[in-house]
């Protein structure tokens, strides 16, 4: 360094260390005016200085949310000033910081693009959570490490986020989460369209929906769409490469593994609540139906639909399909037959409604009565007629299209428009696999031949 560069370095040090006096500032300014060379050098130094600040997380200490917020709540201890790249693998905790909504860009719907910002949320429900969260309280979130229980929060974007432990989630902003571990379900209203969740393998952008992401296993990410539509991006691909995106709609699921290969998830199981879903077959011990698979994988490799197994799920207004909103109901005021209530239910999907060649394999873990609920408009398929017994009982399939003939709801206001489905039964004496045939009764010659038909439902009760 020559003498002038040493002077320049000293002026720069004064500026970057925040101790420059008026004379030093004027001197720096005049040097910069003097030649393009100094300006190049200055930009070079300042750029790295600023990148280091940004990288080190120092700028967050000065960010308005921190400096103007006043006191920290007692339980939070010291503010988290870890640089973000270190914090990722290191010590993490809730940061319910009393940040005023300074960082919220009110006019743009709460988007917070400055990394240091905390995300404002309301605790909707905290079950068996060790941290002291109370329903109804307002919190500011940056990272969440949940060792036990379930936490449900509503972000200021309107998105309702359910986190099941063990989980580690970063709240990047009111529209963006990063799930490092754990199972997260997001219910996204129209206001929060564009809400996204990223994991090590994938980025899921919501298009107005309820969807879940399971990153409990570091080797893959599972994505489930309960309602609406999401777009899944390959994290390794160029971010602007729309071709790398895969669209998933209601009732579809996808597994992305470490090598970014995509797999169909055939079964999604449920606990008592919709958020208690699982892609690993987690089911209560008394469950009868433990798995369902179909013969369609080879025939249709791009198939993404899943069968949802809901133990004890058959009741009034139970969802009939994974991919559409129809529901099971009693045909009249007496409701569903008592002997069917509380049966294990499989939500099938309607993509198969005209299929005349597929078969399904249902695995039952104990002796049971297996029910098939079949569309009455068409003759029963041969396999059903031959192996199952017609109970003579119909139940209602809600939200029928009026064009297909309707039984007006007679029940206690439960159904709007109902359509009769016939209940068929088969006694299964031994645990094992039961094969079911296609939903459509015959091979048709062309589209003109096809008669309206809906996919059958599957239910099971233990043998008395």
């Amino acid at each position, binding site marked *: 360094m020559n003498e002038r560069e040493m002077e320049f370095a000293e002026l720069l040090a004064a500026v970057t260390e925040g101790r420059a006096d008026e004379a030093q500032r004027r001197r720096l300014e005049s040097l*910069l005016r003097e030649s393009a060379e100094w300006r190049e050098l200055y*930009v070079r130094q*300042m750029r790295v200085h600023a990148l280091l600040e940004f990288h080190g997380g120092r700028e967050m200490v000065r960010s308005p949310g921190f400096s103007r917020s006043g006191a920290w709540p007692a339980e939070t201890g010291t503010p988290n000033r870890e640089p973000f790249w270190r914090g990722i693998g290191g010590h993490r905790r809730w940061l319910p910081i009393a940040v005023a909504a300074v960082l919220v860009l009110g006019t743009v719907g709460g988007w917070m693009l400055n990394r240091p910002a905390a995300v404002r949320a309301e605790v909707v429900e905290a079950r068996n959570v060790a941290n002291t969260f109370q329903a109804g309280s307002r919190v500011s979130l940056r990272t969440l490490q949940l060792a036990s229980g379930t936490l449900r929060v509503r972000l200021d974007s309107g998105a309702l986020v359910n986190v099941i432990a063990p989980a580690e989630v970063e709240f990047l902003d009111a529209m963006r989460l990063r799930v490092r571990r754990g199972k997260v379900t997001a219910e996204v209203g129209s206001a929060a369209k564009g809400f996204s969740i990223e994991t090590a393998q994938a980025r899921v952008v919501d298009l107005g929906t309820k969807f879940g992401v399971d990153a409990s296993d570091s080797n893959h990410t599972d994505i489930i769409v309960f309602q609406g539509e999401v777009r899944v991006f390959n994290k390794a691909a160029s971010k602007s490469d729309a071709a790398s995106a895969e669209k998933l709609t209601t009732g579809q699921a996808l597994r992305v593994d470490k090598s970014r290969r995509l797999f169909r998830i055939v079964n999604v199981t449920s606990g008592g609540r919709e958020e208690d879903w699982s892609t690993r077959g987690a089911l209560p011990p008394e469950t009868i139906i433990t798995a369902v698979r179909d013969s369609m994988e080879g025939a249709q490799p791009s198939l993404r639909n899943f069968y949802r197994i809901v133990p004890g799920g058959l009741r009034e207004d139970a969802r009939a399909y994974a991919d559409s909103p129809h529901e099971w109901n009693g045909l009249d005021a007496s409701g569903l037959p008592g002997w069917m209530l509380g049966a294990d239910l499989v939500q099938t999907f309607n993509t198969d409604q005209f299929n005349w060649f597929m078969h399904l394999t249902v695995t039952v873990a104990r002796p049971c009565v297996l029910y098939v609920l079949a569309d009455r408009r068409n003759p029963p398929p041969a396999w059903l007629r031959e192996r199952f017994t017609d109970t003579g009982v119909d139940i209602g399939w809600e939200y029928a299209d009026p064009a297909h003939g309707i039984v007006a709801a007679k029940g206690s206001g439960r159904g709007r428009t109902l359509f009769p489905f016939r209940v068929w039964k088969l006694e299964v004496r031994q645990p094992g696999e039961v094969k079911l045939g296609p939903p459509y009764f015959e091979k048709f010659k062309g589209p003109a031949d096809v008669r309206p038909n809906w996919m059958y439902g599957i239910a099971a009760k233990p043998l008395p």
Partner: protein
Amino acid sequence: MAMDERTTALSFFVERLTGAQSQLYAFIASLLAGASDAADVLQETNKALWQKAAEYDPTRPFLPWAFSFARMQVMAHRKRLSRDRLVFDDELIGQLADVFERNEGGERQLQALETCLQKLPSGQREVLAAKYERGEAVNDIAAREGKAANAVSALLYRVRAALAECIEQTLTKEVA
């Protein structure tokens, strides 16, 4: 535009904006000559960009477009400041912004910085950590290390120069 395309365009915009944060911060901090308001001005810039999201043409590079907004916000900020606070005048801001834009280096600078940090000797990394992660004053670092304060300042200057060099090389290699 169909709703789908619009949502996709929007998510790309958010990607770009998010990816540009460190560069925008660096740009603003440079023009503000180290003043402590860079985070505020960045926030204002984000807001302005967001309001003009619909005008962003995804076929064109994002950074130069975003820099023009940051530049306006820096100038607006300068007008709000009292006279005793240092900020360069509009002409110098323009000249510096030109330099910055000519060598903008793209959105991958932060990743390149991380790579380059790994290559530094541990003593230098420790000084950087003290200043940029823990926010220690140069005087304190110097006292701990048993050095003169201006020696630590000079070290920081040299390390930044080395990092600038390394970042450029890393990014050039990526392009090649």
